[in-house]
Structures are given as structure tokens and as C-alpha cells.
């Protein structure tokens, strides 16, 4: 019995070295692919959710994502909808767009923001709700994940809070 366990022990030790040799060439790629294939995705509270609709405007587009509601059992952040103005370079100096966030054909909000030529300048957004579905934002910038405006790459992202219903 001792011989068998010793044999298994040394075999395991040698296999450890073999695994190590395989790590950069086989294991790393295999495991990376396996993690990706699990279908996990970044929490929409961070990623902003999946696109639901694209609204064409004059020279640019607004991508409206599905509403995001945190699944946190404790102290969840307010639900929000993320809208992306793209490309930022094609936007006028001042934007005022009405947006239908739920695709029912009726406008839900008006988003207003200035687009400074300096891409590092801070952005501020006003969101005026046109109904009870969306919450208001006044001169909001970047402090809250549920209500903010930021420039990411060549796009401008606006998140407007939704009612908790």
C-alpha cells in the first residue's frame, strides 16, 4: 500500500511540473476560453446593459439600451437606462434630443447637454422626464452610476434614472 501511495504521490508531483510546462502554451488559452464560454458577462450596472434600439439623428445616432435593474438584495442602486450618442465627433455643440427609452412610440425624456470641443472637459446633462417612467437629472455629471454623463472613447454615454416600478 505504501508503495502504491508513494507512486501516486511522485506521479502527482511530476504531473505538477508537466502542468506547469503546459501552462503558457495550452492551459492558459484553454482556461481563458473556458471562462469566456461560461457565458458570464459583466454586471449591467457597470456595462450599461445590452442595446435595445438605435435612433437615427442628423449625422449621429442614439443607441438606447435595455433598462438595467440591479439584482443586489441589499441597497440596490436606482434602475437606469443607458443611452449612447455616437459618434461624439458628429454631435452639434449643444444637444437636445427626445428619446423613447421603452420603444412604445412615445418619447420618455429630453436629454440636454453641451459638447465641448475639448474632449477632456467635464460634461453635464439635464434630463427632463416626459412622464412617470424616467427620473429627472439636473446638471448631473459623473458621481452616480444611475445618473451621469461620460465620454467613453468616441461616444457620449448618458444614464437616466428610471422609476423603481
Amino acid at each position, binding site marked *: 500500500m505504501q508503495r502504491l501511495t508513494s507512486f501516486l504521490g511522485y506521479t*502527482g508531483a511530476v504531473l505538477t511540473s508537466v502542468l506547469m510546462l503546459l501552462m503558457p502554451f495550452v492551459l492558459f488559452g484553454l482556461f481563458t476560453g473556458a471562462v469566456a464560454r461560461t457565458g458570464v458577462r459583466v454586471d449591467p450596472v457597470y456595462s450599461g446593459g445590452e442595446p435595445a434600439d438605435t435612433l437615427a439623428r442628423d449625422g449621429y445616432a442614439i443607441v438606447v439600451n435595455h433598462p438595467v435593474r440591479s439584482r443586489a438584495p441589499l441597497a440596490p442602486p436606482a434602475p437606469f437606462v443607458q443611452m449612447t450618442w455616437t459618434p461624439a465627433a458628429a454631435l452639434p455643440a449643444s444637444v437636445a434630443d427626445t428619446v423613447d427609452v421603452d420603444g412604445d412610440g412615445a418619447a420618455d425624456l429630453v436629454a440636454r447637454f453641451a459638447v465641448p470641443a475639448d474632449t477632456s472637459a467635464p460634461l453635464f446633462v439635464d434630463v427632463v422626464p416626459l412622464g412617470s417612467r424616467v427620473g429627472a437629472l439636473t446638471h448631473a455629471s459623473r458621481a452616480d452610476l444611475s445618473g451621469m454623463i461620460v465620454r467613453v472613447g468616441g461616444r457620449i454615454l448618458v444614464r437616466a434614472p428610471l422609476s423603481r416600478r
Partner: protein
Amino acid sequence: MSGTAAPDTLEPGPRSIGRSLLLTLPMALWGLLMFSQTLRVPGSAPKVAGLVVFLFMTTLFFLMMRTRRTYRWRRIFFVSVGFLFPVHFIWDLIALRGSMSIPVEQMVGGNTPFCFLAIPMMIVPAALTRTLIFPGSILPTASNPHAVASMVALWLAATLVLGKGWCAYGCFFGGIEEGFAALAKKPRIRRVDPRWRWMPWAVLAATVLLSAALYEAVYCTWLCPFKAVTEFPEVNSVTSAVQFAVFMSLFVGLVIVLPFLTRLRTQCAFFCPFGPFQALSNHLSVFDVRIERSACTDCVTCRRACPTMVLDEKSVEKGRAGMSCMKCGACVDACTKGAVRWHIRGTPLSASSETARLLYLFPAWAFATLFGGSIIANTLTKLLELVL
């Protein structure tokens, strides 16, 4: 413990230079394979850095072979990684963003580099909703090469190979406190209540549960001392100012002051939730550290040498290090009686400790060269680019 033959309690003196070189050869070839990739990178700085790190890692391994000692040579590598990683990381952040803070644009853009410390907190939400509570990206992108899948894959592979040895050969933070612990010749604080060793388990349980409840990586958001030398949320509110103050206080206390006063890796021993999480994987590894009771004189040298207080009276009595042993080799090197031994599960305690050490060191050092070595090489490249 099993076995009938008397163990080779006292190892012979230094190994001959010829045998040491022969044992170093496989590791030198591995190093060549790893760092030959720097030849393809344009510019002389990466090539010089690759050569320097190749020589550094190979020399340290040779010294491990020659002296039959592990800890002090591993520590040189580990402390180098610990101090150079933040340099490399902060350098990249300053170049990319002009600041160490994570602007919200980076978070919603999925550009936050992923850190292995977040892994335990992500498991429950990922299992329940298939979402990761981390503002990074799943696969590497041009703007975020440190994606979740890559880091998890690296950690998984390393865990299969090293078990808890990750904390002695893989963690790029532990070297900072190990460096500060090494600065003091003698501990100023000699008696630390061993019950503090349960603290990381409590931190692990609390952060896992809170992360599942709040859907955010609570340890990263509120408690990680290493945010002080990597990146932290932009300070633009009272909440973020408190977070920043907590990060700095914990870093100064647990990573600088207490290691210096106790000569222990205090953050690892008494706070880090990843340590106990990784300890669970120690059962996957065939390598462990055992104590030959018949050779032990209860001199407590091994207990004093352990940087994370894993060895205590009970474990010495039982003849094996606790499950949180990170296999750094400090206790084995410190024992003058040869009673503390490297061991392969299933083999008798009388089996050669040195054989077990070699069989562990080859994969452990190969991983260290691959991962930590590349961190050192990348940082050196940046520093050399200033000069060359």
C-alpha cells in the same frame, strides 16, 4: 505520518557547483524560452531587461540548488516583484490617465484591470446570475489587456500547480510587506495573539456575503490596502474620500508598520481574504510541509520563522503545517535539526525532503519566472527606456 526508515533529518552541506549547474539547466532553458520573446520586441530596452531578468531568475535558482535553501532566495525575487509591480502599474496608469484614480469612464467602459483578489467575491453572484460584479471586460481588449478571463485562467492554472504556494510565488502584493518585514533585524512586537489568524477567514466570510448582498466587490471597494499602490476610485465625494483614507491607513498599518514591528506578513496573516480562499486549494497540491516529531526538539525556531504564523504548538505536535501554509520554505530552512521537511503526499516521511523540495521548486520557480519574472522585466524595460 507513515514510514519506518529513519528520515534524512540533517541535509548535507552545499551541493557541488557541477550538480547545482546541472539542476539549474532546465530552469535556465525555461527562462531562455520565456525571455527570448523580448528579442522580437523593437528597441534595446526590452532585450536588456529580458537578459537581466533571465540572469536574475537563473542565478537565484542556482543559489537555491547550491545552498539547498529556499526562503532567502525566493524572498529576493518576491520582494523585487512586490516593489516593482506598483512602479509598472502606476507608470501605466499615469501614462494612460494621468492619475492613479479610476475615473467612472474607465469603469463603465470596462477598462478596469482585473485583480485576482476579487475572485472569491465574484463567485456567488456569478453562480446566481451569471454576471461578474467587476467593472472590467471578460476578454482582453486593446484598452484593457488585464481582462477577467485571462486573470482567472492564470490563477486557475497556478492553483493547480502551486495550491497556496500562490501566496509565496504568484501574488504580486505580498512582496511589499515581506520587504518591510525583512528590514527589521528583530521583531519589536514579539507576542501576537494567535487568534488573529482567524481574522482572514472572518474577512473572507464577511466580504463574500456582503458582496453577494450588495453586488459589488466589497473588499476592493472598501478594504484592499493595495489600492494605495495601484488604483482607487476617483475622490469626488465624501464616500470616495473615506474609501481612500481606509486604503491608505490599512496600507501603512498592515503592509509597512506592522510587518516592520513583527517581522510577519501581517496583511497576509491577519487580513487578506484571498489567503484562506487559496488555502482551500492546498488540498489539490501534492506538496506539503511536515515535521518529523522524533527529530524535533521543540526549540520553536520554525514557529518563529513562519512569516504568517501558520505553525503553532498544535501543528508541530500533529507533525504537519496548517492548511494555510504557503510553502515559502522559511520553517524548513530555519530548522537546524532537519525536523521540518518538504514532503509529497502519499510518500513516507522518511522519503528525501530534498527530492520533494526539488519536485516542488521546479514548477514553482517556473511559474515565478513566467509571471513574476515578466512583471520585473516589464518594469525594468520602462526604467531602461528612460536611460537607453
